[in-house]
């Protein structure tokens, strides 16, 4: 086995797949990446048995076919530290893989390719496929990922719901206190809605892989796996086996207390006020009355912050408290100039982009002081 590749091409493919490779693993081969040469294509694979990442590089120089695994982190570190314009050649010599570049030479330990876990076969039990441009997929994931739970006992919340229905991909994430959902148009062959939960780790890796580009990707969903294929890379993740809550039920209907606020002004106000919140609870009070939003924060040291800003609000006065981090997350994810808060009688609020309310819906539950 032998191939030659430019440092740039190798590093960008290798960094895609090395994200899931653990430095130390209970199964030694999982610390390695699989290198495979077929024709003029180099394929690199990394896996932790939950998430598998495949990167591909076109080879220009003549190559000899073969497959082998080498220590992932070391390979990345070596490749990265070579000069930008370097050419790297790799050759199998005995049970070693030797890397040469100009006057540098490294020989790496290997494990046979047949010890590496095989890729999931997605042909059987395919439930549906959906195709969309990368930046749209990236957009709906980034718009909701921050609401995923982190190691919650309700394990099905430690992930993101992908729902495909009628040429629409929807993502939903919730930690039980707040919920985010975002929609995007996508071509699909799915007739009845398909819902799957992608684990948190898979979501993190996938959003790292997807570029904000116009290039298309296809999302395949089977009973137990999701695969996203762009040509340059293939991402495969196990799905979370669990029932996601009925998210529609928690989106309050018919709240009438609407407040419209300038997004950047509100962000700045909250950034300042949050300095004096209780670090543990992070609660801030929203007092909304007569086109004015007053934000109050205080901490155990009895320090206090008061901010006032003009908003559009003419309904009955409201006095509610929220976790400031939850509101800041939403304001960071929305893109428009203005946001609209719709508060219901229990003070739970829906936040949407004023100019594009159909793109994403955020529900934030209040705090009781």
């Amino acid at each position, binding site marked *: 086995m032998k191939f030659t590749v430019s440092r740039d091409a190798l590093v960008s493919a290798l960094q895609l797949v090395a994200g899931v490779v653990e430095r130390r693993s209970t199964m030694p081969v999982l610390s390695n990446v699989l290198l495979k040469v077929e024709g003029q294509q180099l394929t690199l694979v990394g896996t932790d048995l939950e998430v598998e990442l495949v990167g591909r590089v076109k080879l220009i120089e003549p190559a000899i076919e073969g497959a082998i695994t080498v220590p992932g982190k070391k390979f990345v570190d070596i490749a990265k530290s070579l000069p930008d314009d370097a050419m790297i050649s790799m050759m199998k010599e005995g049970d070693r893989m030797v890397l040469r570049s100009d006057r540098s030479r490294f020989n790496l330990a290997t494990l046979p390719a047949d010890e590496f876990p095989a890729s999931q076969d997605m042909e059987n039990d395919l439930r549906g496929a959906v195709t969309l441009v990368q930046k749209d997929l990236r957009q709906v994931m980034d718009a909701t990922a921050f609401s995923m739970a982190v190691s919650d006992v309700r394990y099905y919340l430690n992930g993101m719901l992908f729902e495909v229905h009628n040429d629409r991909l929807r993502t939903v994430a919730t930690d*039980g206190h707040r919920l985010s959902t975002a929609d995007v148009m996508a071509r699909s062959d799915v007739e009845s809605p398909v819902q799957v939960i992608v684990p948190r780790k898979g979501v993190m890796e996938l959003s790292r892989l997807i570029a904000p580009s116009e290039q298309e990707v296809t999302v395949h969903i089977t009973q137990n796996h999701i695969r996203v294929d762009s040509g340059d890379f293939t991402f495969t993740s196990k799905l979370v086996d669990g029932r996601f809550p009925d998210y529609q039920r*928690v989106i309050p209907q018919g709240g009438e207390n609407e407040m419209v606020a300038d997004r950047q002004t509100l962000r700045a106000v909250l950034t300042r006020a949050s300095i004096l919140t209780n670090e543990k609870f992070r609660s801030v009070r929203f007092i909304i009355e007569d086109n004015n939003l007053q934000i109050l924060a205080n901490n155990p040291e009895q320090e206090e912050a008061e901010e006032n800003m003009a908003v559009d609000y003419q309904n009955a006065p409201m006095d509610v408290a929220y976790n400031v981090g939850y509101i800041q997350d939403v304001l960071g994810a929305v893109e428009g100039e203005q946001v609209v808060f719709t508060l219901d009688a229990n003070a739970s609020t829906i936040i949407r982009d004023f100019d594009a309310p159909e793109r994403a819906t955020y529900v934030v539950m209040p705090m009781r002081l």
Partner: protein
Amino acid sequence: MGYILDSSTSQRRIIHIDCDCFFASVEQLDDPSLTNHPLAVGGASARSVLTTANYPARAFGVRSAMPTWQAKQKCPQLIIKPVRMQRYQEVSKQVMQLLKDHCDQFEQVSIDEAYLDVSHYYQAYGSATDLALWLQSLVAREVGITVSAGVSQNKLLAKLASDWRKPAGVTTISPAKQLEFLQNLPVKKFPGVGPKTQTRLERKGITLCQDVWQTSIESLTFLGNFATRLKQMSIGEDDRPVQTERRRKSVGVEKTLPQNLEDQDSITEVVLGLLPQARQRLAGRPFNHLSVKLKFDDFQVTTATSQCSHFDQEIIAELCRIAWQRQRRPVRLIGLQCQLTQGPIQLPLSW
């Protein structure tokens, strides 16, 4: 008995009341024929240990926490009674109620111990020592067991004093006599000095309180933060207040099952059945963590906890699953605990 409050003095007066070999005393109370025999409470099997021994038994060298077989060797005629915790709790309640009735500055620290702060009682009506003697006779008359009392200006000295003359003793340590009392006291008598610390101190030549006096705090740094505390205790300093109302940190309900349960769903069902009782106990107080406690048939206990400020059925079901998966054995007791909080509560989405 009426006391008039006196706020003129700044010197505190604390009484520590400690029931004498409590579990054994209750057994003697219920069966007076046992009174002058060596008696212990604990398990009778070869692997058990004793919880309490009465004074005739102690004369043979029998001690609490001693393995039963060893106690039997030291005292072959030892009578061993099984533990009847419910009954001890009943008697404890009577004793504590009597004390509480006569002093509202009252802190119960265990089933058989309490502190009373009598600083504000007008001294002309009797010294704190008189009051301690009177409470002692009251408990003997009303409940039928003996207690020892220690009287001094703080909790530490009062506790050391009650231990001084047992059983049925009353010891007072006045400020003037305090150092004299401490001088030859073994350091192992101080709270926080267990067998391990004791050995480490002995290696430095410290066995008595006066040895601590002679040792600089720098030479005690191997004790960490406890060095300062030990120094303070060695001269009888202790400013801990008598905590009238101990702030509860958690509210729990539990149920010993009529039959062991062996599957997750029935465990969850029992926990859900505990909810009305838990709600009643909480009386609206906010909580921020929820735990499910399981005791298995081998008496091992496990607890699964989650952040949670309301009784979420899904969380409860998951906690039951997690706790049950740890052992997968028949379960004999199931409990639910709520950790109370003072802070704000994040309300949940309700789906």
